């Protein structure tokens, strides 16, 4: 399959739009699972964290007491797969009293306008 991709040489821009908080629902985790697979396909991948999605990459997550798997360290592994375009939406971050020091991975802070411009360039948008 990936051979076919290489042969065809198609490289599309994929953006994963994450708007939901972690743990309350599974979307953050299952979105991340798609991203990890996407890494094998040599596409142009970026992740946008908007609204409550910014909480997905918040530092210090400790799920021991809720008895649910803590998957936040997986975001740190993304860089090993050359996935390093992680965008946090500025207004969403600020509305939640967060700053660029509060994230567990390096992220770029983008205003809504900047992120809109990036979204416009995408071929495929995946939102969970």
């Amino acid at each position: 399959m990936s051979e076919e991709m290489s042969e065809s040489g198609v490289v599309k821009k994929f953006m994963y739009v994450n708007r939901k908080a972690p743990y309350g629902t599974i979307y953050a985790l299952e979105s991340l699972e798609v991203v990890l697979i996407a890494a094998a396909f040599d596409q142009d991948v970026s992740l946008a964290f908007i609204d409550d999605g910014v909480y997905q990459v918040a530092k210090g997550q400790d799920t021991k007491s809720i008895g649910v798997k803590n998957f936040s360290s997986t975001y740190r592994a993304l860089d090993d797969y050359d996935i390093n375009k992680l965008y946090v939406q500025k207004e969403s971050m600020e509305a939640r009293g967060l700053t660029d020091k509060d994230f567990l991975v390096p992220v770029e802070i983008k205003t809504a306008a900047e992120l809109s411009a990036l979204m416009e360039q995408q071929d495929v948008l995946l939102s969970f």
Partner: protein
Amino acid sequence: MKFGILINEGPYTHQASDTAFQFVKAALAKGHQIQRVFFYNDGVNNATKLTDPPQDDRNIVNRWSELAKEHKLDLVVCVAAALRRGIREDNLAAGFRISGLGQLIETGIQADRLVTFGD
């Protein structure tokens, strides 16, 4: 005190079943009774024995089955909601039973408190 529990969402997708599980464990540890745990809406999906999550994650279905065995919990799956979603005796996990919505009303009547967990 007698608690009735209503779970309206399926496993993994929403935290409802996880929170309910922790609540039930804590209530039992305090010596309270669990009159019944009723599974409705997508909550019926907590009762499929075919679930097989990744090794490093909790098995929500088995956890309920084991707690039910240990404490003789009455885990009831709504038949109408279950048929709509493909849960039947064929794929029902241990410790669960399928019955009618009357069992939910009965829980409302017999339990001192009904606590609902959903989306």
